[in-house]
């Protein structure tokens, strides 16, 4: 007596054991074609896709790190003992305000805006002095002492640059004004006649303002508002001093 299931299974096995060579050859062609296309896509992805992603990520990281091309060129030049490649910093009293700040300072994200929580409200036009891509062109009225405080470009040391960067980052990136004040004080103490001394002094005043130390801020801004520092941030300083007036 036969088992119907076994019979059916046997029939199924026999029915499906034949080989259709035409179909097999056709499928082989389809398989190899598809695999070839797959491989081509992978090659294209690795040849173009990955470098593109790497470039984009590198650019983003570069921008996020707050470094400019010039900073790196400058550092490389100093490492190899090369002279400064382009502009030399003038060190006369009349040229204090034409310093190419944007070439050395890290790019600034946005001008500092004082919020309503600040002790005094600053005018909207007041911005931070190291805004990238600006070259200060105010008519200079600098005193001799200011001009003497400006060293040559080539005298900028790694130490000075790192002090500047620490203070700048605390001020404009992490917005920790206590740390920024300490940073600017540090800079002014260690390199009182540094390349960024003028800017450090102004930023220090802004930090004092942010911290609510109005009287100290007013004192720090006074030299800027009365023109002792030349025309550097004069109008902004005047506006701030006016608002800080008792």
């Amino acid at each position, binding site marked *: *007596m*036969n*088992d*119907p*299931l076994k*019979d*059916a*299974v046997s*029939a*199924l*096995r*026999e*029915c*499906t*054991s*034949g*080989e*259709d060579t035409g*179909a*097999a050859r056709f*499928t*082989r062609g*389809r*398989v*190899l074609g*598809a*695999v*070839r296309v*797959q*491989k081509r896509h992978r090659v294209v992805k690795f040849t173009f896709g990955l470098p593109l992603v790497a470039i984009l990520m590198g650019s983003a990281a570069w921008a996020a790190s707050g470094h400019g091309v010039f900073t790196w060129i400058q550092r490389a030049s100093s490492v190899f003992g090369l002279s400064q490649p382009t502009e030399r910093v003038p060190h006369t009293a009349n040229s204090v305000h034409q310093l190419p700040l944007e070439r050395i300072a890290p790019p600034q994200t946005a001008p500092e805006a004082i919020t309503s929580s600040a002790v005094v409200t600053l005018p909207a036009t007041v911005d931070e002095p190291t805004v990238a891509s600006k070259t200060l062109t105010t008519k200079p009225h600098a005193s001799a002492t200011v001009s003497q405080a400006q060293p040559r470009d080539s005298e900028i040391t790694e130490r000075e640059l790192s002090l500047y960067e620490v203070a700048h980052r605390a001020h404009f990136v992490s917005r920790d004004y206590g740390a920024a004040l300490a940073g600017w004080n540090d800079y002014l103490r260690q390199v009182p006649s540094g390349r960024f001394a003028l800017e450090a002094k102004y930023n220090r005043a802004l930090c004092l303002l942010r911290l609510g130390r109005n009287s100290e801020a007013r004192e720090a801004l006074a030299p800027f508002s009365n023109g002792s520092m030349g025309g550097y941030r004069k109008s902004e300083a005047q506006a701030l001093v006016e608002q800080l007036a008792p």
Partner: protein
Amino acid sequence: MTMGGLALTDFGVIGLFDATPDAELCARLTRGELDAVGDAYDLYHEQVRAFSRRLLGDATAAEDLVQETFVTLPNAFRRFRGESTLKTFLLSIAVNHSKHYLRAAMRRRKAIANLAEVDSLGGVSDGHDGPEQLARRKQLVMLIQRALDELPLEQRVAFVLCEVEERSSPEVANIVGIPEATVRTRLFHARKKLRRYLEELGVTS
């Protein structure tokens, strides 16, 4: 080198059942050689096709499954650890991809059944049966396919691999990636359901 069912190759011990020394082919597949896929097809397409046709019961869907199995081989091969033969690995790829094709095959089969046509397997006769016997076997094939359609995919795979392909439980466990006991349980339930279904359809000894 073969040792009692085990094949020692560059990849270690491979193949509990089919001790085919396809180590060189595996190495070429690892290197991503295009020709290696072609060679793997030439070597194993018959087994993969037979299994696909038995599982799906539809020549067109089976052909698509064969294609997908070999097309996905280069990517899937990254998971290959040399613990089984390449053939077993290919069958496991086919099992993994069969679900989608099975649905398509079942739809087609139902449509054909509704039209009261003969099955679409394109079967091959051994040439010794008479026309009546041949018709009966074709009828049986159609009925068993309809009965298989009633099974869950897991039981169907276990039944086709064990009963139709006559593979042992350990081998099926290796292909499907489940314990042997589970294979036997699935097979038991599949047989039970199929017998009942065939009885309902009036298939008797």
